[in-house]
């Protein structure tokens, strides 16, 4: 389960970012923001290699001592970033992928909302609860 989930706009500003322990929020923001470096690197690498069969899932962006950062990018260059705890070793690649898929679906729902203004921060309750379900429950 994730400790931080972020949706980042094409222009690299956060559309949505939520993390589990509130006191560490800033740290997660820094982590997610820095991960954009790797995302951009991977996107440009993918763009060169195979433009056609574009894989949305970018995999592990970079590990830190405490966290693993995974990334995913949509065709419209909206980025999803999931930060998982390193100690959570039971998390497999497949689960991360399915989390991204869920995130993407929910995000698509948000975008389909006619009252949502593209580019605004996401305030959808449905999206929020979906993210909560994917987060580690703070015990």
């Amino acid at each position, binding site marked *: 389960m994730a400790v931080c989930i972020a949706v980042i706009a094409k222009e690299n500003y956060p559309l949505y970012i939520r993390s589990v322990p509130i006191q560490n929020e800033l740290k997660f923001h820094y982590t997610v*923001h820095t991960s954009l470096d790797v995302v951009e*690197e991977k996107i440009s690498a993918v763009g060169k290699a195979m433009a056609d069969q574009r894989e949305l899932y970018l995999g592990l962006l970079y590990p830190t001592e405490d966290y693993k950062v995974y990334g995913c990018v949509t065709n419209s260059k909206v980025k999803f970033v999931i930060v998982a705890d390193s*100690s959570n070793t039971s998390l497999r690649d497949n689960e991360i992928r399915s989390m991204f898929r869920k995130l993407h679906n929910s995000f698509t729902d948000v975008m389909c909302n006619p009252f949502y203004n593209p580019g605004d921060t996401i305030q959808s309750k449905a999206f929020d609860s979906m993210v909560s379900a994917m987060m580690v429950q703070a015990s």
Partner: protein
Amino acid sequence: MEAHEEKPIIYTMENKPIVTCAGDQSLFTSLYTSLAQQLPRESMEWRRSYGRAPKMIHLEANFVQFKEELLPKDGNRALLTFPFLHIYWTDCCDTEMYKASVKDDMLRWQSTLRLHGSVDWLIVVVESEAKKKNKTNILPRTSIVDKIRNDFCNKQSDRCVVLSDPLKESSRSQDSWSAFLTKLRTLLLMSFTKNLGRFEDDMRTLREKRTEPGWSFCDYFMVQEELAFVFEMLQQFEDALVQYDELDALFTQYVLNFGAGDGANWLGSFCAPVKRWSGLLLRRPIDMEKRELIQRGEASLLDLRSYLFSRQCTLLIFLQRPWEVTQRALELLHNCVQELRLLEVYVVQGALDCWVFLSCLEVLHRIEGCCDRAQLEANCSHTVGLWTYATEKLKSLGYLCGLVAEKVPTSEDLNRTVDLLAGLGEERPETVNSLQSPYKKLNEALSSVEAFEKHYLELSHAAMEMYRAIGRMRSARLIGKSLAEFYMKKGDPERAEGFLDDSLRSYVAEGWSLQVTHTRKQMAECQKLLQQTEDYLQTSALLAGDANLTEEERKHFCQEILTFASQPPAPSDQTVALSMAAFAQLRQMQFSPPGAVVHVGAALQLELRVRCLMPVAMQVEQLAATLHFSLEQGGARGRAGSAQRRTGQGPQGQGDGVVLFPQGSPLAGAGMGALLPPALELYEMQDRSPSDSSLTSTGVVCKNMHLLLRRHDSSASLDTPTAGALPAAVAVDDGAQMLRARDITLQPGDNSILFTAPTGEPGSYTLRQLCGSVGRVQFVQSHIYPVVQYEVYSQEPQLTIEPLSDNLLAGIPQKVKFTIATGHYSVKKGDALQLSNTDSMPILHSSCCSATVLSSTGERMGESALSIQSSEKVTSISLPPTPPYHTLEFQLEVLCHIPPTPFKPDIERLTNGEVRHRPKSHSHADSGMINIDQKVSIDCPWSIYSTLIALTFYVPFKAKHSILSAGKRKYIQVCLQNVSDTNFHLADPVLTERQPTVSMELLSLNVKKQQPVCSQQSVFCLWEMRWAKPLPLCLQCAFSASFAPVSASDTHTAFKPYRYEFQLDRVSTLYSLKAEILPPSGDQHCRTGALCGLEVSITRQAEPSETEGEEEESTEIEGLRTTKLMYEVVDNSSNWAVCGKSSGVVSMPVAASATHRVQMEVMPLFAGHLPFPNIKVFKYLPHNAVPAIQPDTDSCLENDTISLLDKGLDDQGDTASIRSRGSVHSVGSGEQQRGLPMPRLEPFSPGQVFYWSQGRQVLVLPVTDDHVMEVNVT
């Protein structure tokens, strides 16, 4: 491997598979060199069990003398020392000798081998020609080999090979060598397969036992590593690596299971507190020291991991995959930290940091050792992680040991440092001589504050450079930020500022609000230390309005500003200008009145809504908006219809005078705005033709197209900081005019401020800059966007008169509305409008006439009675006093008299009643209404010139008259058509003679009552004429009637006269024409196809009167006055065929009852009641006669005028032939016509000829014997 041979340290193992040699040692020694050379020369395919892919391998061997000790004892599974093949060498060629000694020796060798269960052996018999030649009693050479084969290889004959003349350069020797080597390789591989297979089976069995209590990972580790060693020995590094990876995975799984509560006993040794943290050691192929620790089961987790990684690293470098080393290293370091945490191993604080730091540097050194500089630089992305990790760890060590401070470390810090250094142990012998070893670096860095700084900066800059080089700007900035934090701790804000500024710009540009807040706080601290007052205040303002901060923090920063603001100003600097954006956001502006277009001097209020972002109420001494004034619009233009359009020009502008300011996201303030595309700014565009200002085209223009169509970079670049952390210095410009509000308190949140806008001069005013002053601090917003502007205009007074209904009708009273827009003129008491009176359009004023005064916004201000005085010449309307820029409205009734007809439709009457013809017809195309343009001349009090205003009236009726005859009796019919849209009542139609003659009487045949005339309907009136004396040639008549609209309330007074005058000429009947159709003689009825007689009798009805006689052309022949008439029979409906002549000229005596009969023949063409053919009579004027009346040009008779040649023209002349000739002539030459005057025909006026047989019919029977009947069915 070529790669490692160049390196100074050889990491490969010296081990090769062991092959023992028994028998003749001297023989072997002589062959050893070439054998050792030739064995690895060719590769062999190694087929392997368990479906593993076959491999080509080059074999090498370590040949040792056979000893019994070399053979492995039971249970010893050491593979490295395992002899894979045993060879017995002999060059015996003597049977005797073989039997005497060699055979026994071989038997002994064989039994030893058998004892140890080894089946991998080979006997080599070396033959040489030289040796053979020495002996005389030689057996054939095969015999010894055969004997040996017979004795030893009972089933495996291939276990004995012959090597012929090995030391000679002959083809035979070559062949035998290659056969021998092939055999040797094959056997070696067979042995490998067999022995390794057995070993792997054992190993697997051992692994399966791992759940048993006594199982130890360390033991198993040793076993599997043995396999790895063998693979490495065989240079199968990939396979060797797999063994280590398997061990790694197994161990990791155990640790994870332990974490999940499933602990294994043997893991206990790894949970011992970490005592040594000397880092990885990658310079030796095998770290025997650690290996022994593992073997003894005394290794700590770090030891095991270090050893495993060092082996993996060695193999990966053999495989030339150095970048995998760095990647695995980072994973390993992260993993170890996690595992120690998971296993709850006690580690001295900072020890792990030391270990990680040393390990990172060790890996980097190792990689640098095997790659050149260019390679390293190209692969920064792989190493930079380690650099960063090392930097982080050094930083945390620095903080831990009190090295990051302005003061020297405390004794506690020193103790800690000593403890940490103790755990590093002695420096390894390999690196003792190296100056830059990780050990030395760490030692040095922890030794003093200065050394720490040096190393830390070195590492940080290296990592930053690398990140920059590979384009990871965010990561570089993050390191920069932590450097800034370091500098701040060191009390060096100058150097911190640059890094903070750089980071802050990038966060603002990308809109990451939490980072912005955090960095800005650090920035504020930094700026405060640097005493950059202005910057600090600006940052404080931003922070005070930052929603991410707590209330206390915001208040603190707000207080900082207030404290500064309240200080008495220093003489040097007066005020500090800060950006308004941090202080307050503009929400909306509202004009009152909403049009935002006012006249000079009018009150215009502007309500500004601002959201104050400060956490406490702010006392603002003055809030002022400078105005830009331009004359270009407004002044010249009157009350423009486009006034509404001008307000709220912004994209979100609304029609009600409200300008909404676009709201940037609350997250990022200025930063977000820059990222979002600007909204469309659309304007209405109208293109009017310059001549008559009619609309030629209209459209919508986008004014900020250049912004919208600009190319946007698809990847938002970080390197162009938009809307930086601090806005560019804001300048306060002193506008001449401004909106001001003094001493206002802005509460946190929304506030409303009311401005009174100056409207002194006509022109357009644009709000440019907004400035709020709080003590010494000014908050300035340099642009107000969208554009807010208002207009002040000045207007000339204006008078308009317009009808209340669609069309003004002439003849009845109509209401018109007078509108006076006073403009800048103020209507004083006694001011009056002077209307010149005209007879044609009197002004009907009633006593109760009142005027309404409206304000410029259309509000009703009041009502006052108008006093209207009429004199002969003028009507004077005295106006009530009205202030400027108001509208005065009142209504008057006017009546436009219908001019007596027959008027030509195009009449324009001037005010003086003069009627003149206008060149253009004004009758309505659709309704045929006749209009009258009535101009009114008005003298206005504000102008010395008269104002001419044209009103158009429409005549509601159209009248026609006609004369009807019955023999001598005459009737006059008048048709009155209502062409207007109004329904009328018509009353009292009267027909009178204008010059009344006593003799004539007009007898009305009309109803007395009034009758309705609906719109577009007609009414007919009829009078009979009676006369005693002969009638004059010309009769002047006048028709008059009263009419009133049906809707009129007071019918009696509402009736207005309508008059129609006309003239009747030559009314009395001169001739009567009677026609008779006579059936053929003997028949009672006419029949089709049969000729009938047509008898026309023309009878003179009256004596010519005095007046008429002049006109009538007559000739005196023998005292009898005659006049010539021409008759013509025409049948237009082709019912009749006129046979023979159809026309002729008769001479009529000018006397009453003179009759002339004409006989003609006609033939009916159809059966039935056929109308009589038309008979026409014309006056026949001889050529010499001067026509009395100039021929009317508009008459249609022109066509009927028949030119006749007078020559040979007789009374009874055949006109049919003449006509044809005439027509030829007329076509042939016009000259002749001009030269020879022609006789002319002139019609009679209606009423002069009375046709008796008009409308008569005659019965025509069909021919009796005509049986054919045509039936047409359609």
